[in-house]
């Protein structure tokens, strides 16, 4: 508990205190200025898009990894963890290398909102895949066979049998991806360019010495993240029951 306090709790408390240090009015005005609001809107929108695409593609990848078999599957399976192992700054750089100014494929995505989405998809890829995969492995195939033998089409079986079983896993994976996207910095630091992402705005505020407005934006971001964490725990305890 002491360890947690020294390293985590006291510093976070300091941010909250700093945000409120010059009164509620100042706190509100530092959130309510246009760049801060825009940064929040862009960050939340990008995170939502990433969570949605990640949920669909992550489930698809998990499905292929569990139900399909092909040469090199073990390699692909190991590859999924690459974004967790690779330093995020390198992740950002790899995307500049491929989609940047001297792109070998001629796609110039870097320094745009599209690049932000791609970078976030990269770093959050494992969340949905790794949370859906074990559930899919445990899933009882007999229920699906029963549905099929009762005349259900593949689409119906998937929609009525498989999807409901996977839904909590997909949801919690996507929520983790969302939470991670809100605060992501490393992979975006190089690639975001002039796109004002919340974490980058906070960084610029710290560098220019306006710690109070950095703290104000931080508190809002932390509130959103805590909300996600809270919702996740509720889902978790529902599954346990």
């Amino acid at each position: 508990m002491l360890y947690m306090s020294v390293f985590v709790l006291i510093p976070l408390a300091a941010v909250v205190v700093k945000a409120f240090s010059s009164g509620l009015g100042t706190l509100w005005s530092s959130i309510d200025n246009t760049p801060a609001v825009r940064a929040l809107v862009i960050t939340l929108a990008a995170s939502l898009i990433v969570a949605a695409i990640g949920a669909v593609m992550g489930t698809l990848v998990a499905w292929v990894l569990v139900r399909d078999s092909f040469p090199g599957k073990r390699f692909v399976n190991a590859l999924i963890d690459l974004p967790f192992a690779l330093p995020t700054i390198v992740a950002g750089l790899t995307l500049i290398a491929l989609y940047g100014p001297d792109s070998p494929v001629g796609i110039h995505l870097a320094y745009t909102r599209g690049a932000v989405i791609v970078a976030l998809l990269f770093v959050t890829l494992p969340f949905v895949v790794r949370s859906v995969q074990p559930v899919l492995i445990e899933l009882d195939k007999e229920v699906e066979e029963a549905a099929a033998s009762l005349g259900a089409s593949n689409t119906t079986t998937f929609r009525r049998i498989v999807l409901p079983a996977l839904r909590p896993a997909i949801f919690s994976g996507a929520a983790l991806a969302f939470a991670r996207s809100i605060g992501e910095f490393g992979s975006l630091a190089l690639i975001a360019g002039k796109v004002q992402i919340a974490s980058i705005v906070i960084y610029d505020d710290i560098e220019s010495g306006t710690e109070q407005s950095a703290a104000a934006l931080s508190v809002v971001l932390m509130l959103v993240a805590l909300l996600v964490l809270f919702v996740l725990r509720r889902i978790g305890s529902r599954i346990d029951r």
Partner: protein
Amino acid sequence: MTVSRRTTLSLRLVALAYLALLLLLPVGVVFWRTFEHGVATAWSYMTTPAAVSAFWLTVLIAVIAVPLNTIFGVGAAMVIARSKARGRSVLDALIDLPFVVSPVIVGLALILVYGQGGWFGDVFLNNGIRIIYAVPGMVIATVFVSLPFVVREVTPVLREVGDEQEQAAATLGASSWQTFWRVTLPTIRWGVAYGVVLTTARALGEIGAVLVVSSNVAGSTLTLPLLLYQRDSQIGSQVTTSVYALATELAVLSIAVLLLMTMFGSRREDAR
């Protein structure tokens, strides 16, 4: 559910193409850019004094942060899974905080507490200990962001194996210390190993939190990711071989970590 051959193949194609475009191709291009002027050139960029000192600082920070978080992680997991103390559920809820707080906010938080004019900063500064814009701050930042991994890996294993064996050991007269070393630790060892690997990966690659509390002076407070960031933002849009060489160096480190992850991950699955 019997899926037709065509659907299976097209799903496989979509999944593999997605992974190739998102993961494999970008990483491949970085390797290619690094070595396009020959291995010797790339090697010379990796062995400049700044790069070498950044490498050792990265390793040093990981060597301090990882054992700290491992000891704390196993201890906290024991409390969450075994103890019935009142603080248990609070601890359980707070453990995940570092995962959902943006690394930049972590940096800001540390400045406000340990920096000049911060809550405890002046106490340390008056005694000649510099934390922020120096290595201690970077270590604390790394500890913060990589704190939950070991706890999160070990807690479910402890819950799953239950405490019958530990009770048996205790009835046979083992002290709690003996029980821990002889019974508990061997059962959770693969979970611990996996958590340690994840912690190491994060410690080696962390940028956001460390960037804020570093003074960005090459040779003293730049880790490999920071050096990479500094080089790239100085040059602007034209990324050079020297940047790619550093990226490759980091990527090689992390691929080694990935191999360990795969190894320990499957051992951990087998053990269950």
